[in-house]
């Protein structure tokens, strides 16, 4: 609703004047980045942000009453929709959850909302869309002035209702995914993590978005749900119509719209070939990740949903190197998870992973939308703002609940805890003091916890990497988070497609930082792992192996590929490759050098995917 400047000749909303898009029957192919492997064939559902621009259109006096009627009709329609939704949700998720829709239906009927809009239509003789948008803005401004953070965020309820009415006024039908029975590909300009969680089941089988870098949340979540995804396709939502047949090829990063029967058949057989290839990869499942010259590596899994545990085991993970605990918060939002809910989750994870380790990262409601939804903070520059450990320490009560649960769960399995986004020693000391306080509390209450629980930190801020030697004295282990480390040290917004080409994991600065961290860990005798995306890339894995990295943690499905690399490599060769790579001056030089070295030392085809 930000832009209200209407072109001089605009007589209606821009949606109404836009001619109906003709159905395009031809085959079209669009190129993006494949971020989650796999192939999905289904019909397009375009998720549009409902913030269509609204124009002010003067109406004639004799048309005022029909304009008011139009508004009343849209209210009635919205109310019916909401009550229907309430019934449906109540059946699937329970009355308590569904009651929000009843509250929304009440807002639709509330005269203090509807009368204001009608008054505005009548007194200003304007179109209903404009009057509604104005009233909505006034109401939202009042919510924004509330002191109570949670209630202030409830502006979302008013916005949700007003948006629904606006949509109905503009004659656009809502998509309710639960009504769809065929397979669906979600197309959107961008998806937020909470969107992706709602799309995590049938009928949704794949995604494609306009925005997003290789390591955006959309891609990470798509990967963890094993749903093919292609991102970075410009103008996607303008080029494809709802209900068109779409093939998402997450291997090649392409979208094929309106494929012929022959193409569909070809892709279906490709799915079978990939399944066969995966089956072959899984043959190494029971083998250890050890180089030809007997250098032992541990390959672990990054997961964020409990359901992924079975995949971790299936792909042969030796432990969980990163459990992202954010999703418990998102699933409980707007309420916070209780200590018991945290405890049960961590206990079951630790027990299922034992005897291997299970590293739980405390909540990192990162950068963008999550923080706003759960915590209610708004920042101009969230990536450099309140996130990671800073966020934990700011909301210390919330944090204590999680830490208490972690300490209680630490007597089960082989649980470790890890703090995200540490930038200096002071922060580490503060959080360790907090942990000591909680230990004392638990002791006083006679509640069991593991006194030797290992506490480690993520190394993902350049300052932390630079002082890894100092941090190593006070930390039990390190885990290098390359996604953020790359974005912070190269000043690249990882979801900005204008600069994402500069996202270069083999940048000499990165290799030096990573080497420094690994060396500092070795010197202090603490384990160093890497849980960033970089660890799951076959080409990079060779370099990381050579830099001395011994624990690689990645998406479960990447484990067999990396294990093949490790098993066909000689540690001695990798060390040499890393040494020489460190002498190169640009990411490109390094990449060319590594590709060339790999080609001469590894069996053909092993790393072809990376090259």
């Amino acid at each position, binding site marked *: 609703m930000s832009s209200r400047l209407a072109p001089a000749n605009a007589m209606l909303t821009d949606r109404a004047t836009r001619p109906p898009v003709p159905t395009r029957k031809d085959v079209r192919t669009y190129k993006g980045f494949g971020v989650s492997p796999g192939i999905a064939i289904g019909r397009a559902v375009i998720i549009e942000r409902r913030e269509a621009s609204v124009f002010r259109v003067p109406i004639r006096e004799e048309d005022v009453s029909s304009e008011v009627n139009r508004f009343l009709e849209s209210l009635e329609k919205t109310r019916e929709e909401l009550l229907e939704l309430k019934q449906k949700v109540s059946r699937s998720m329970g009355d*308590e959850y569904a009651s*929000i829709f009843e*509250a*929304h239906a009440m807002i639709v009927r509330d005269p203090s909302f509807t009368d204001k809009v009608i008054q505005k239509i009548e007194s200003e003789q304007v179109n209903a869309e404009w009057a509604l948008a104005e009233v909505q803005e006034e109401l939202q401004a009042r919510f924004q002035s509330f002191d109570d953070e949670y*209630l202030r965020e409830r502006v979302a309820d008013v916005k949700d209702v007003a948006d629904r009415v606006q949509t109905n006024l503009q004659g656009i039908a809502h998509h309710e995914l639960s009504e769809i029975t065929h397979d669906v590909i979600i197309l959107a300009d961008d998806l937020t993590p909470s969107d992706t969680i709602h799309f995590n089941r049938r009928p949704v089988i794949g995604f494609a978005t306009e925005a997003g870098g290789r390591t955006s949340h959309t891609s990470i979540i798509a990967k963890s749900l094993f749903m093919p995804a292609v991102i970075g396709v410009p103008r996607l939502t303008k080029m494809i119509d709802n209900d068109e047949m779409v093939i998402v090829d997450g291997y090649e990063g392409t979208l094929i719209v309106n494929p012929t029967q022959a193409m569909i058949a070809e892709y279906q057989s490709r799915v079978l070939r990939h399944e066969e290839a995966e089956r072959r990869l899984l043959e190494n499942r029971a083998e250890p990740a050890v180089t030809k010259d007997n250098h032992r590596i541990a390959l672990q899994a990054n997961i964020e949903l409990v359901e992924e545990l079975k995949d971790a085991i299936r792909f042969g993970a030796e432990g969980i190197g990163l459990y992202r605990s954010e999703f418990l918060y998102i699933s409980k939002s*707007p309420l916070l998870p209780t200590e018991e809910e945290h405890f049960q989750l961590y206990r079951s994870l630790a027990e299922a992973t034992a005897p291997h380790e299970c590293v739980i990262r405390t909540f990192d409601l990162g950068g963008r939308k999550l923080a706003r939804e759960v915590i209610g903070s708004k920042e101009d520059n969230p990536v450099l703002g309140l996130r990671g450990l800073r966020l934990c320490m700011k909301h210390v009560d919330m944090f204590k609940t999680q830490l208490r649960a972690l300490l209680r769960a630490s007597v089960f399995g082989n649980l470790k805890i890890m703090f995200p986004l540490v930038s200096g020693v002071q922060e580490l000391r503060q959080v360790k003091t907090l942990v000591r306080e909680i230990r004392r509390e638990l002791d006083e209450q006679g509640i069991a916890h593991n006194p030797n629980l290992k506490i480690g930190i993520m190394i993902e801020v350049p300052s932390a990497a630079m002082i890894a030697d100092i941090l190593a004295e006070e930390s039990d282990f390190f885990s290098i988070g390359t996604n953020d480390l790359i974005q912070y040290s190269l000043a690249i917004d990882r979801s900005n497609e204008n600069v994402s080409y500069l996202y270069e994991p083999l940048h000499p600065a990165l290799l030096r930082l990573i080497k420094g961290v690994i060396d500092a860990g070795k010197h202090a005798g603490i384990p160093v792992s890497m849980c960033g995306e970089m660890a799951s890339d076959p080409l990079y894995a060779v370099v990381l192996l050579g830099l001395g990295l011994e624990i690689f943690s990645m998406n479960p499905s990447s484990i067999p590929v990396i294990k093949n690399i490790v098993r066909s490599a000689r540690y001695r060769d990798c060390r040499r490759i890393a040494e020489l790579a460190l002498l190169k001056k640009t990411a490109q030089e390094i990449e060319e050098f590594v590709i060339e070295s790999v080609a001469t030392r590894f069996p053909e085809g092993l790393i072809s995917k990376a090259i």
Partner: protein
Amino acid sequence: MIAKDIEIKNKLGLQARAAAKLVHTAARFKSSIKIKKGDEEVDGKSILGILLLAAGRGAMITVRANGEDEQAALEDIQKLIDAKFDEVE
């Protein structure tokens, strides 16, 4: 006309779900119901009015009922608020 000061005790305060329950209860009675927080007074049968009071946990509100069934109305409203709107915490 009778009135009573009541403290909001549920964790999330008078948000949409709680406000909807309050309106439901108020609407069952013939009496007019007014709810006041600070200087602001709203219709107890208007969900938006109640939301705009911004009554978070710990807020003190005054509930005024006026009409033939005012006693019962006030009692039921008090019960609802004291039961924390049956919110799952």
